[in-house]
């Protein structure tokens, strides 16, 4: 029996593993369905928020206020306060592990006094910070455009340095109290891991919008689905953040800086139709409205000029050339809004305990402690995974110490093996990859940026049809070992579950708030200032 089992190896999972180890847990094991650094965290570019006040005066109170404001009435003040107050210490911790933050010139450093209660060592004062959308000050510490990547890899280096064990290519199948079942993708068998405490850090579910998301393929909400099936409560699944400018066919993100540097958004007629620097959800909605009218939408960077573009947006230019075959200095760049982040997740206490599940903790995008509410502020997701990953790791280690060591009695390994065998043996005529694409298209069109009762009900009907058809999927691969189609099928099952909960909640929320927009209820309604929850065997809303 391991002391602490962490499922997921992104920023939250690795932070939890490190904290558990440092808190004295002996056997800390991290299970991941890929390899430790192949996680969504690697894609976070912008930065990690902390009111260090390195560039201009800033305060923790302002950070709290900005976060609450973005959450549009659904942020938990206590949780947000906790995160924002712990932010400078989180940066200090990353600094001690060797995260290669971008730095600023020392000559600027003493011009501003930070009113925060922390006395910052010059090592933190030298960290560069930039302003992101919705922030009242330049608050995001960054490492060029690779902030997430560099934090993630530094955490990984440190985790193995401490002796954390890793299980590669282990897909989570099911949870039980103090036990997790995995599919060992290489060997093709069930692996049962008993643990005194379990931390879920499996990330969000943006990939259910297949073909319309910046998320990596595997962001299918496996941890949320497993927790739901074992009695955890999921909340706020209807709040999905869209980024206004993904490349049209590849969904590769073109960062906000392209508009910040003066890029226009134009429709097929070549007309501008929205203030390009309005908040993300507003811009995304305006673009989507154009698309609904049958117009393509383009990012126009031509007037900026070739030289300036190469200097200001080298990454974006290279991506546009590679993925769309277009030189933005000379031609219009086709774009569309794409799914970027899922605010909802597993309900936890402030100590990251999963409500109603003994010995189970959750942190990061898979969890929902109401930090982001109806919309997430840029720079807060990396902060959340570092702060609450650590809290989860500590809490799990403390729990493991007290655990009386009784081993779970039931054993579902055989039943799970049989279930997988059945999936592999199916003879139906449906194609997994076709259905996966259909689900993504459906969610994007009917449960995406602009929603309505009519569209959501139609989506429900089509989803039921897809669910039925999914039972007739013929995998076309009967290999036991390294069966990629099987893994992707199991992920698809989770996607179908989360899609159902998302559509249900979006139908219930008869108002518009943050990232959730109903064209039939375009106003925010105070009667809906609560979290919509889903629990297996009956949902109850938490007023």
């Amino acid at each position, binding site marked *: 029996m391991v002391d602490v089992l962490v499922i997921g190896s992104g920023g939250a999972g690795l932070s939890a593993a490190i904290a558990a180890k440092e808190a004295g847990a002996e056997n800390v094991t991290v299970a991941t369905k*890929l*390899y*430790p*650094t*192949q*996680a*969504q965290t*690697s*894609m976070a570019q912008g930065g990690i928020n902390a009111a260090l006040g390195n560039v201009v005066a800033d305060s923790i109170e302002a950070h709290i206020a900005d976060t609450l404001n973005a959450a549009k009435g659904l942020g938990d003040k206590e949780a947000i306060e906790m995160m924002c107050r712990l932010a400078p210490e989180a940066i200090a911790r990353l*600094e*001690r*592990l*060797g995260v*290669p*933050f*971008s*730095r*600023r*010139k*020392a000559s600027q450093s003493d011009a501003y006094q930070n009113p925060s209660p922390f006395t910052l*060592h*010059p*090592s933190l*004062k*030298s960290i*560069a910070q930039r302003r992101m959308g919705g922030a009242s000050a330049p608050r995001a510490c960054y*490492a*060029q455009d*690779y902030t997430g*990547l*560099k934090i993630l*890899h*530094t955490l990984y*280096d*440190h985790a*193995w*340095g401490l002796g954390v064990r890793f299980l*590669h290519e282990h897909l989570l199948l099911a949870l039980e109290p103090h036990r997790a079942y995995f599919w060992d993708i*290489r060997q093709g068998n069930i692996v049962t891991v008993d643990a005194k405490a379990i931390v879920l850090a499996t990330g969000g579910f943006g990939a259910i919008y297949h073909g319309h998301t*910046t998320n*990596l*393929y595997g962001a299918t909400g496996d941890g949320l689905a497993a927790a739901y099936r074992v009695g955890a409560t999921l909340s706020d699944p209807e709040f999905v953040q869209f980024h206004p400018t993904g490349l049209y066919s*590849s*969904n*590769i*993100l073109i960062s906000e800086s392209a508009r910040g540097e003066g890029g226009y958004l134009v429709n097929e007629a070549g007309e501008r139709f929205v203030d390009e620097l309005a908040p993300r959800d507003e811009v995304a909605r305006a673009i989507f409205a154009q698309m609904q009218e049958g117009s393509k939408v383009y990012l126009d960077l031509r007037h900026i000029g070739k030289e300036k573009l190469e200097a200001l947006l080298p990454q974006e230019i290279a*991506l546009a050339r*590679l*993925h769309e*075959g277009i030189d933005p200095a000379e031609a219009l760049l086709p774009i569309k809004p794409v799914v970027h982040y899922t605010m909802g997740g597993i309900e936890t206490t402030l100590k990251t305990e999963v409500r109603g599940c003994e010995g189970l903790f959750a942190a990061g995008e898979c969890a929902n402690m109401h930090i982001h509410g109806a919309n997430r502020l840029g720079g807060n997701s990396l902060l959340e995974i570092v702060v609450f990953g650590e809290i989860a790791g500590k809490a799990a280690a403390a729990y493991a110490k007290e655990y009386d060591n009784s081993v779970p009695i039931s054993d579902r390994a055989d039943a799970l093996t049989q279930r997988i065998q059945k999936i592999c043996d199916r003879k139906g005529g449906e*194609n*997994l*990859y076709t259905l996966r694409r259909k689900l993504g298209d459906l969610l994007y069109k009917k449960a995406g940026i602009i929603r309505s009762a009519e569209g959501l009900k139609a989506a429900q009907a089509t989803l039921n049809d897809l669910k039925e058809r999914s039972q007739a999927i013929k*995998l*076309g*691969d009967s290999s036991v*070992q*390294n069966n*990629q*189609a099987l893994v992707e099928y199991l992920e698809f099952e989770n996607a179908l579950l989360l899609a159902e909960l998302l559509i249900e909640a979006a139908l219930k929320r008869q108002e518009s708030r943050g990232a959730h927009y109903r064209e039939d209820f375009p106003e925010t309604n105070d009667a809906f200032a609560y979290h919509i929850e889903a629990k297996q065997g009956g949902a109850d809303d938490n007023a």
Partner: protein
Amino acid sequence: MITLKIERNGTIESFEVSEGQTLLSALYEIKERYDATLTFAAGCRASVCGTCAVRVNDKEVLSCAHMVCDGDMVAPLRFHPLLRDLKVDKSQALKSLKRSEAVLHRYTETALTPEDAEKTERQTDCILCDSCYSVCPVLAVEENFLGPFALTRAYRYAIDPREAQSQSIIDAIQNKGVWDCTLCGECTAVCPKGIDPKSDILQLRTLSVQAGYNDPNFTTQSFGTPDFSGGFGF
């Protein structure tokens, strides 16, 4: 339509796929339309998760960053145990990070400058895609060679002013490490992130000498005839 040739467990199979797409997207096209058993690794599609490196026409590329061309010959990475088709086992290669002690051992409080940060900026762009490991000719003859990505990472921590114990790193990279490199530069040529492991290895050699180590090749090297039996001690 164009033709892709794929090396699958020793045999070569051809598939017709649409043009104008990345290799990763073409692999999924094959999986959906022709053969669901085709096995490969896929992640972020944006060249940052490090999952999808393969070899195309004998050169390491990220599947998500290579536009398919007619006749492309696709093969799995070398020097990794082959699992199935284009999918390899990276566990062994990852162990080189541990063996090279590529981690910050003992932190010392230091206010870094932009110049300090710049020194390791490129090295820390590494996504662990293993392209450099696959192209390295030393690994063909010495499977315990630490390899380019681990040495680049070792260098990144060794020169970090916050590391108070860089000696541990220098000690760890002597055996099957910096001196085994042939400086051929293939790693530098294939890195999708523009990292230069060859130059990092050269820098590590300098640090090693400063720390009191000798170049074992140099000390055993012959300086032509007459050869006074074995090297520098002539």
